[in-house]
């Protein structure tokens, strides 16, 4: 299937480009760490409080990091006008988006997994017992962030003040992801099964809705 093979080819291009320089990953990991540490300086939580507020701060840090990490997504296609050559080369422009959002989700997850031990230590949260569920929430949340973020970075790349604009567009849009992911993550550390089921289903719905919207409107985002 053409869409699948084009997406794979483009995804390997995205990964190869990033792993050659690793600039995006390194800066994002460092950024999240700095944000998490700064949060704990300004709030100085007790152990009990850390456990309750930690997940919320974690997801906030992920959102901030993502809104920075997503900036170059379409900007880097502008310097040599490679966006035009990609558009000419692929039969379905959706493959461009799929490849980028897959790459972005992967980068976010790598960042989160690297940062998880630090989070566990600073905020005294037991990440190991519910690790598989935690990974699932991180995945669905990161996927949602990437889908919306990839779409919006295509928009902000065509406007002025794009560095400020992307977070402004993205953060309100991602409120559902922040709220639900944080709540589910808290419940994981408190072991409340009922909460996590509904929350995870909601995140899946968010992902499907925005992926569909991107599929329907993606080609217009790339129009010249």
């Amino acid at each position, binding site marked *: 299937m053409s869409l699948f093979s084009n997406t794979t080819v483009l995804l390997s291009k995205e990964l190869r480009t990033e792993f050659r320089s690793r600039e995006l990953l390194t800066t994002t990991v460092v950024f999240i760490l700095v944000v998490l540490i700064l949060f704990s300086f300004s709030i100085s939580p007790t152990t009990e409080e850390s456990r309750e507020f930690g997940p919320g701060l974690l997801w906030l840090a992920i959102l901030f990091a993502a809104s920075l990490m997503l900036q170059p997504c379409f900007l880097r296609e502008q310097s040599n006008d490679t966006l035009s050559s990609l558009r000419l080369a692929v039969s379905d422009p959706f493959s461009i988006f799929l490849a980028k959002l897959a790459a972005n989700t992967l980068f976010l997850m790598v960042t989160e997994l690297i940062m998880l031990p630090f989070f566990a230590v600073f905020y005294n949260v037991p990440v190991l017992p519910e690790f598989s569920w935690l990974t699932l929430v991180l995945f669905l949340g990161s996927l949602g962030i990437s889908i919306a973020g990839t779409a919006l970075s295509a928009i902000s790349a065509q406007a002025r003040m794009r560095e400020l604009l992307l977070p402004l567009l993205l953060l309100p849009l991602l409120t559902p992801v922040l709220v639900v992911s944080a709540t589910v993550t808290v419940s994981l550390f408190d072991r409340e099964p009922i*909460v996590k089921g509904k929350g995870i289903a909601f995140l899946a*719905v968010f992902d499907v809705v925005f992926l569909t919207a991107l599929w329907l409107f993606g080609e217009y985002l790339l129009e010249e």
Partner: protein
Amino acid sequence: MSKRIGLGFVATLLVIASAYASFYIAPEERTMGLIQRIFYFHVSCAWAGFTAFFLCFIGNLLYVWKRAQKYDWLGVSGAEVGLAFTTVVLITGPIWAHPVWGIWWTWDARLTSTFVLWLLYVSYLLLRTLVEEPDRRALLSSLFGIFAFIDVPLVFGAIRWWRTQHPQPVIMGGQGSGLDPTMKMVFFFSAFAMHVLMAFLVAERYTLEKMQTETDLLAREVEAQ
């Protein structure tokens, strides 16, 4: 033009009438007293604002499909008017909350969601100021408007679910929870009045945008000579 003036006149009359009804026709609510009357205004504005955003959404969809400038005019008008009404909602909410609960903001599900809604459409308007070329501006803001609007139910759903985890005081004690028949009548009349006002404001803003665009076009053609 006279149709619009007529509409404005009717809208003003209706709003004044509904204000009168809120104060003098609706019975006083048992527990909250006078401050409860702001409910008619607050919820009517919320509904009218939401309808305005829906008009924006329709404009956005039509623009992406047909690429006629008039749909973009509808989009920006719906967004601005919707934002105006939503601002009123966000102000009247705390005005109600303070005498009743002693605090200005309670992170009530609906009000918080409305705040996010407000932020989304502020971003919509901000995006428009940052794209200079008119066709590009129309396309990009329409696409963002579409994403924003489909996000709205998700925002409301997520925040409501979040609040069930941490119950907080609810503004206005839950909408429509046992409204007396007279109250219901006053409410629907207020909602109707606000919608007429909204329609008038959208029409005015639409016309303004249309004239602005046409003037710009003329100015450019003159310059090109």
